[in-house]
Each structure stands twice: as structure tokens, then as C-alpha cells.
């Protein structure tokens, strides 16, 4: 936790995309040449799935246009030339606010969950919810926030208060000793936190019944639950399986991240909108570690803060080497849904040739969803999407484990994703036909 750097050096140019999560794009509120302050709202939008965009920097608007984005696409962004000034809009902390007011503040602050859903929507799913689960299973990200753990826990309590959920569960990896130690020393509601292991059928419920704490920490397995692994998270931690087409909220669980808990604290206790995040940088850089970065900072500057590239960089991957996007330029900015950057050298870049499937079943053994990846992929390749559906292609969580272990180096995930898209299209077409009858 000591190796967290705060990136204070001003970048030459800041690119603030008007859409930083998988939802509605905002319309820019500023014009070219305008001066903006720290925390000023840059993007406004209407709809249900929105996250307002604020300026983390003080500076002049240089241009507004399509700019590179870590998603690999070009997205409408406000480009700022930041200045040394630290003037900000007035940050008003809130005290003793009502739950609906808290939700309102969270919405205004533009906080987004790690799984691309705005926090204000995630906390209020309009269903009966009994548990708020905080996913702290990304060790490097969690470590970055251990220094301000009290704020994270305060933010988590505020989230419970805002949503009216009675109890909270913080999930850490069982092998993440550092985080477990830090949580052991933490105090919530005047009491130390209880750390409970998940063993067999003893899920979080088992401990929550025994202890009258509002928040407990559970150490669950050695899995990092990525955004697509909601189903596994709720099954492993709470013992509740989510069936296809449903969300954890259907089994009375809401999931949040460590980052959003910290952001909620900032928004409510300090009045600050969502302006910065911890981003982990690993791979071929001189000083790998976590950096606290303001949104809009180009990835290039983040890598410079980590000592620059080690050797000749071949690939820069945003959000993990299992399912992340390899970006074509390091000018792309860090946005709200950026969690990690992986740098590979030219020598590390994989150059494999796909060969025929030898039916070794390594993908079957590794699949967390119990699917037959090779069969689905083969049918997808042949265009037999109905067969893919019969083999439960839609249950695929696109974790990429099958492609990692494939000795024939087939593009299993891409083929399965493609079949899912086609199945979706077929279903939509059928629904249209039904409707026109």
C-alpha cells in the first residue's frame, strides 16, 4: 500500500470522453476556448443509464471532437489544455442527508461501478435486496486504497444508508494477506471488522446470522471476480446462483466496487464529484504499481509515472490481459471504467497460429460455467447458431479461460461471442415477426 503514487504532474493535453461507461453519452456543456475549473460539469445527459462527466483539471478547452478512447473506438471528447491553477468549483459536503438525497448526490457525482453501471442505479434496483457485496478481489486495486481504508469503509456505510440495504459483505481473496491484515485492523461502527472464511456451504449468510455486525469481511477462494463473473461471485459468497438472463439483484444482492465506495465517500463527505481512480500498471514498465490518476490523463503519462516503458513496448492492454482491449495508441485517456494497464514487450506479444481442434477438452475442464467451448465455437464457425444455443452458448461469461488453455490456439471467445450476437439477432427477428403477425 505504500507503493501507490499520486500522479500530480500535469499532462500536456487532457482528453475527457463524454461517455466513460457503457451507457448514455453526455452532451458537452462547454465551448472551445472556454475556461473550466476543477469539478466543473462538462457533460450533461438525460435518460436512465447516465453518468455526468466532470472536469478533474483546471484549464482551457482546446477542442471538442472524436478522440482515441481506451475502448479502442473514437469517442466524442472534450480536450483540455490543463493549467497550473487549482481553482475548483465549490465542494459542499453533506451531513445527515436523507437516503434519497444521498442517492441524488451519488447520481450528481457521476459515480460508475466497475461493471459499467452507474452506482445510483445499481444501489436502487427496485427489488427486494438484503445484501450489499463489495468486490475487493482485485488485489492491486484494493491495496491502492488500503491507505484510505477508513474512507472506503465510511463510503461503504454511506452506500448502505443510501440504498436502505441492511447488511454489507466485503469480499477479499483468501490469498490476499495484505488486504486481510488491513481489514482486520479496521473499525466500523466502533467495532473491529470480523473476517470470515468461506468454507463449503458456510456462505456469508451463515456468519451474518451469528454476528450482529452490519458489515463483515469474507475471504472467498482465490478468484478475482471480473465484471462478467457476477454469477460466480453471488454463488461463491452468498450461495445464490443467478440463472441466465438475470442479475444478482434478482437474488437480492447488489454488488459494488472498492473504487465506487471511495468515490461515494468523496462525493458525500467532501462534496467532490468522481474525478480520479486508482489504476494498476503492470508488465513491461520500470516501476509497476498502482497510480491514482485523474480521468482524462493520457495512458502515456500514467506509464511515465511508473518509470516509463521497459524495453520496446509491443502491446498496451487496458483492463486485464484476459479480456482487455489492446489499444492502438497510448494517447488514449484513463476513464472511469479503466482499472488496469498491462504492457507487453515486443517479444512477449503472442504470435500463434490457429490449428485444428484436437478435442483435448482442456477448455471443457477449465470453463467456470460448465460449457463445451470447443463445440460451441465449431458450430459458430459453421454458422449453426441454433446448435450453439442448444449447447448453452448464451451462458458464456466471456472470461477467456478457454482460449488461454487451448493448445490449438483457437479464437474460442470470439467465436462464442459471435454466436451469442447471432442468437440475439435471431431472437430479435423472431420477436419482430411475432409482433407483426
Amino acid at each position, binding site marked *: 500500500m505504500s507503493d501507490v503514487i499520486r500522479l500530480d504532474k500535469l499532462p500536456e493535453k487532457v482528453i475527457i470522453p463524454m461517455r466513460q461507461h457503457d451507457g448514455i453519452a453526455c452532451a458537452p456543456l462547454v465551448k472551445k476556448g472556454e475556461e473550466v475549473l476543477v469539478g466543473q460539469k462538462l457533460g450533461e445527459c438525460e435518460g436512465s443509464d447516465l453518468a455526468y462527466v466532470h472536469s478533474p483539471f483546471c484549464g482551457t478547452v482546446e477542442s471538442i471532437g472524436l478522440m482515441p478512447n481506451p475502448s479502442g473506438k473514437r469517442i466524442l471528447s472534450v480536450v483540455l489544455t490543463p493549467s497550473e491553477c487549482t481553482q475548483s468549483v465549490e465542494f459542499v459536503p453533506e451531513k445527515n442527508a436523507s437516503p434519497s438525497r444521498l442517492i441524488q448526490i451519488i447520481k450528481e457525482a457521476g459515480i460508475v461501478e466497475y461493471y459499467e453501471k452507474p452506482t445510483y442505479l445499481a444501489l436502487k434496483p427496485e427489488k427486494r435486496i438484503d445484501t450489499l457485496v463489495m468486490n475487493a478481489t482485485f488485489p492491486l486495486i484494493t491495496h491502492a486504497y488500503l491507505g484510505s481504508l477508513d474512507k472506503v469503509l465510511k463510503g461503504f456505510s454511506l452506500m448502505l444508508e443510501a440504498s436502505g440495504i441492511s447488511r454489507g459483505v466485503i469480499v477479499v481473496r483468501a490469498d490476499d494477506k495484505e488486504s486481510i491484515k488491513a481489514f482486520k485492523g479496521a473499525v466500523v461502527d466502533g467495532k473491529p471488522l470480523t473476517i470470515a472464511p468461506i468454507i463449503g456451504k458456510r456462505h456469508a449468510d451463515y456468519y451474518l446470522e451469528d454476528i450482529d455486525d452490519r458489515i463483515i469481511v469474507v475471504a472467498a477462494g482465490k478468484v478475482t471476480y471480473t465484471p462478467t463473473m457476477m454469477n460466480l461471485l453471488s454463488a461463491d459468497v452468498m450461495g445464490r*446462483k443467478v440463472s441466465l438472463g438475470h442479475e444478482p439483484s434478482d437474488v437480492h444482492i447488489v454488488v459494488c466496487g472498492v473504487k465506487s465506495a471511495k468515490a461515494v465517500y468523496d462525493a458525500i463527505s467532501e462534496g467532490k464529484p468522481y474525478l480520479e481512480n486508482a489504476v494498476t500498471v503492470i508488465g513491461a514498465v520500470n516501476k509497476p504499481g498502482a497510480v491514482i490518476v485523474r480521468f482524462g490523463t493520457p495512458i502515456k503519462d500514467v506509464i511515465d509515472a511508473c518509470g516509463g516503458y521497459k524495453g520496446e513496448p509491443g502491446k498496451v492492454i487496458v483492463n486485464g490481459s484476459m479480456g482487455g482491449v489492446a489499444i492502438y495508441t497510448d494517447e488514449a485517456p484513463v476513464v472511469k471504467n479503466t482499472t488496469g494497464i498491462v504492457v507487453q514487450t515486443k517479444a512477449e506479444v503472442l504470435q500463434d497460429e490457429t490449428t485444428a481442434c484436437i478435442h483435448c477438452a482442456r477448455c471443457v475442464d477449465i470453463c467456470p460455467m460448465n460449457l463445451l467451448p470447443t463445440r460451441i465455437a465449431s458450430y459458430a464457425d459453421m454458422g449453426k447458431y441454433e446448435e450453439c444455443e442448444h449447447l448453452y452458448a448464451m451462458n458464456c461469461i466471456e472470461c477467456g479461460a478457454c482460449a488461454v488453455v487451448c493448445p490449438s490456439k483457437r479464437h474460442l*471467445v470470439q467465436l462464442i461471442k459471435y454466436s451469442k450476437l447471432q442468437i440475439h439477432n435471431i431472437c430479435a427477428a423472431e420477436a419482430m415477426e411475432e409482433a407483426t403477425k
Partner: protein
Amino acid sequence: MAFTVSPPPHIKEGVSVKKLMWSRFIVLLPLCLASIYLFGFPALGNLVAGVLGAVFIELAIQKTFKQKVTIGDGNAVYLGLLIALMVPPAVPFWLPFIGAVFGIGVVKHAFGGLGSYMFHPALATWVFLKLSWASLMVPTSVPQLGSLSDLILETGAGFIADASPIAMIGVLYLIARRYIEWRIPLMYLLTTVVLVFLLGDPLSYVFTGSFLLGVFFLATETSTSPITKNGRLVYGVACGLLTVIYGYFTGNYIEGTFYGLLLANAIAPMIERSTVPKPFGGVEA
């Protein structure tokens, strides 16, 4: 700066088809050495003839049809060696050569090449040789049945693979590394041992080099066995059952292994289709 853009995942396990095939080949080498020690020059000649035949026909087919030459992936070499291991040591050299040409040319490539064949090329070849040159394919002496010390160095002739069952010990490393999956060999062994015990045949009848070759290398051939987890368990049981049925009624567990496995290959797709697992979390209601 130019960066590579490619689809995820960006890291992969260092396992390739090439590695799987060559590691199996290497694990079979001690057995070959034992057979050369025991049978001398004829065994060496036969093994080389088998490998050469396999490489020759694969090269010829891929050159003729202007396909990519895949000798390097080791599959042809490995299959050629298996075919040679399944003939008696005293046969003329052209026999394993012809066998390998048939196995690679017809059973592998005519059915679509690597990963597409429905019968194990080595098994189908053994049956082909057995039917075509029945007199040559009979070992000059059967392995001395009755003593378990034969597991270390076989005193009878049998097939080349019967030379030294213990020399196949390296397969345990492959299973530990998961290059060979444990479900099929385990169920196959268990089923055979239990059935043979129930039927009252001495176990030493069964534990020959050919049988262990069948358990660890022929039954586990990935293209001809089911890919589902439960399917592999069922397939192992089916292999054991078919082996013992043939072996019990003919008294020849070596041939029982090969014929039984060939039949098991035939039912593998059916086993797979009937054991498709339900996905985690269930399906949409």
C-alpha cells in the same frame, strides 16, 4: 509508437499441439529402448519403419494436395511409433511401414486430418494388419503369463509394446501435467480390474504392455474420446467393459484391448452427446 492490436486473451498457457504430441512421443521412448534391448535389431528396424512410413505418407499427401506440411507437430511421428509398437518384433520391416501408410493416409488424412478422425489410426491399422497378414501378426510366443515381475521386463515376446510395461512410467508425469487427462485411464483401469477380479481371471493375464499402452495412449486419444467430463468417465468404463468381454471369452486380453478400444471409439460420439453438462447457474426459465 506502433502497438499491436489483437483480440483477447493476451496471455496464453504455453501448451501447444506440438508439445502434447512430442511429449507423448518422448514418454514412449524408454519403452522403445527396452524393446530394442530385448528384441535387438528387428525391433529397432520396425520402429524406424513405422515412423518413416507415417512421415512419408503425410508429406506425400500434404504435398500432393498442396496443404500446409504438418510433420513438425509430431502427430504423424507419434502415430507411426504407436503403430510400430503394436506389431510383433519379428515381422518384416515393410509391415509396420505399410501399416503406418494406411494409418496416416487412410484413417487420419482421408477422414480430415488431425482432430477429425473418428477411429484411432493406430487401432484401425492394427485391425487392418491383423486381417490382412493374420499369420505375421501373431507373436512368436505369448508373454509369460503368471508372474507380476513381467511388468518390469517381459520374458515372452508378444508385441513390441509388451517389452517392458514399467518403461511407460513417464505417463504419470503427463497425467500430472494434465497433458493426458486422468478420467479415462482411471475408470478404464478400475473397471478392468474389478471385472477381471469378479470373473476370476488372474490379473497378470491383463497387465501386459499392450493393455497399459491401450489405457494410457490409445484410450486417451483426444479426437476419439468424448470431451464432456462425465462422458470421459463413462467412456473409461465402456473401454474396460469391452476389453474384458473380448478378453474373457477368447482368453486373449491383448487383442481384447485393441478390439475393445476400437468399438469404444465407435460409441464415443454417442456418449458425448448424452452427457452434455448443464451450465452453471442453470438456464433461462
